[in-house]
């Protein structure tokens, strides 16, 4: 899907976001009820993250009403993050614990596996509660296709991006996700 550089951002947002949303929903639908392995979970998490970042880039075109939707995707992304944290930790522990030591730490690996399964249930229930419903999803996609009415923009601040001329503090919130 190509964006149009000479068209307003609002119009571009309404073109691209519903497509990205649909892509994300389709990928989740086909994976969520099956045996979700670490690799798949990682891919879905990336997809969720990219969808959320894209929504955030266009948030000024939609306004505060977008936040509820952003929160849904954010919750899901965080839950998937915890799931992939367990599987990446398991891989790192395998590296750190050679053969016999690994066998002695059977409990650790079992606990990690259980935690992954619990986290997978969290992801599934979040999906079912928030985004699996076709009406909710339609509303979501319709919302993305029709950004809110324009509002007057505040004056653009002078921006300096040099590493040698840094702002005194983090300009937008304290942490990133």
């Amino acid at each position, binding site marked *: 899907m190509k964006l149009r550089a000479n068209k307003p951002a609002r119009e571009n*947002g309404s073109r691209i976001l519903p497509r990205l949303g649909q892509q994300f929903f389709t990928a989740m639908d086909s994976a969520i009820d099956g045996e979700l392995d670490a690799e798949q979970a990682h891919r879905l998490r990336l997809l969720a993250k990219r969808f959320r970042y894209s929504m955030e880039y266009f948030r000024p075109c939609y306004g505060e009403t977008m936040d509820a939707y952003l929160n849904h995707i954010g919750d899901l992304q965080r839950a998937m993050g915890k799931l992939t944290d367990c599987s990446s930790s398991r891989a790192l522990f395998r590296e750190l614990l050679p053969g016999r030591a690994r066998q002695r730490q059977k409990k650790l690996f079992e606990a990690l596996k259980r935690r992954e399964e619990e986290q997978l249930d969290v992801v599934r229930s979040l999906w079912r509660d928030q985004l699996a419903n076709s009406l909710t999803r339609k509303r979501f996609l319709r919302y993305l296709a029709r950004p809110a009415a324009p509002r007057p923009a505040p004056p653009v601040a002078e921006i300096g991006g040099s590493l040698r001329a840094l702002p005194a503090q983090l300009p937008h919130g304290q*942490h990133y996700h």
Partner: protein
Amino acid sequence: MYEQVNPEQNLESYAGQILETLLRDMAFSVRKALEKPDQENIHDLRVLGLRLRHALRLFGKAFSRKASRKIRRRLGELQDLLAEVRGCDVTLEVLRNEPIASAVAARQRARLENALAQRRRRAVRPLELRLKKMQRSDSLQRWRQRLALSA
């Protein structure tokens, strides 16, 4: 995060401002990570790198393709270094929290924590070198120029 941009402007200048914002935040985050490469600062820098890379991919058409590709490649290299450190932080956190913490004997947990801390220290070294190089050569400023963002 990107509240200062005007939705009515064309995509080219809109995307330019988004990238300006990300590059500015990243400059700040690079400095913070160099001052104190702790879990929080490394995470912030990593997320900013991901956001910037994704913005370049999404808005690629609005900028020079060659410049955008080159910056994405550089960011990819930085992300790999950050991921090494972040991987240790995540694993340490998993190990310290229930129910995983109680699945490992205290002595073994301490050993694993030490091994992870050592691995992290080793991963931080090349990252610091890269960040210092970025600062020395004023990379982010050069990226802005390459993307022809209004300075």
